[in-house]
């Protein structure tokens, strides 16, 4: 009699209740190991290669905002020492020239930022400087966009609006061939 009892039990279907637990375990494993790797960074468009150096001597001095970074990671902005922290505000003032000073750019369309570094400059410093200069333009685009269209500048804006803003304040950031004074490590 007891035998028939066990045989009866074997006829039952397999309990699938623990399947969810197993799946959960796997799910949690993948959840933990997943790093939805996002790559973020400063997007830059390099100029095409040409053998001759661009000639900037024909530019008016007032339209050029020169930034030099030496191998000791020190900054020289328009022939004066400066700190990275003040770079953004100075660049913005230079580009827009709100008070029409005779030594700053004639207008945003004429403004050129020239960046030159040494082969011994730390990448950290270089990127911080680049970030600030790009930030100056981003801020100005935001301001202009806010005034005109009532929203900050973003990639989601219609192409025509973005183009209008970038025509008004074109980003001209020229990088010169670096000097070779510092020690490379």
């Amino acid at each position: 009699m007891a035998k028939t009892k066990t045989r009866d039990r074997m006829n039952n279907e397999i309990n699938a209740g623990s399947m969810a637990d197993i799946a959960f375990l796997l799910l949690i494993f993948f959840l933990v190991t997943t790093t939805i790797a996002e790559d973020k960074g400063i997007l830059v468009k390099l100029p095409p290669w040409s053998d001759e150096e661009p000639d900037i001597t024909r530019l008016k001095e007032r339209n050029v905002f020169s930034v030099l970074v030496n191998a000791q990671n020190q900054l020289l902005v328009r022939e004066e020492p400066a700190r990275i922290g003040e770079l953004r505000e100075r660049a913005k003032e230079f580009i827009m020239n709100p008070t029409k000073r005779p030594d700053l750019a004639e207008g945003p369309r004429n403004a050129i930022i020239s960046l030159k570094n040494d082969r011994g400059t730390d990448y950290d410093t270089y990127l911080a400087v680049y970030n600030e200069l790009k930030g100056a333009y981003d801020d100005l685009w935001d301001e202009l966009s806010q005034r005109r269209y009532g929203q900050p500048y973003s990639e989601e804006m219609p192409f025509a609006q973005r183009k209008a803003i970038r025509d008004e304040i074109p980003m001209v950031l020229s990088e010169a061939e670096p000097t070779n004074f510092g020690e490379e490590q």
Partner: protein
Amino acid sequence: MSKFSKKRGKASPAISTASLPDIIFMLLFFFMMVTVLRDSDLKLQVNTPEATQLTKLDEKSLVNYIYIGRPTQQYQSVYGTSPRIQLGDKISTVDDIPLFLEQHKVKLPEAKRSRITSSLRVDGEVTMGIVQDVKTKLRKSNQLKINYSAGKRTGNLD
């Protein structure tokens, strides 16, 4: 009357959990798909700097990675301690870059090739000399869209 009493008569059945595994499996497959097991193992130590003006790179297949940094401890006996370039999973020199770019390019359809971005993952402590050499090589290879990979900075600059 009879209608109602009939319904009440049946014991309310427990909610079936039979479809729960299916739902969980669906989630599981989703995460299995998005999980990217690290494709190239890094032989260099790369701590990218932090910045604020960041752009997100969306299409992963259109990005190729160039790592620059010092070899990690275990590779220092082979590659030394000065900064090196890593393309894919091997340590290379600047002269290998055009071939590396070409190999990535041929895998993509023609229409998308103009949108290829090179992401430079450079250690913050590396000096600009080697970075400049890479940039020059990229310009010569006509790969002009580049990205300085960086993390998000929250604090202020000093």
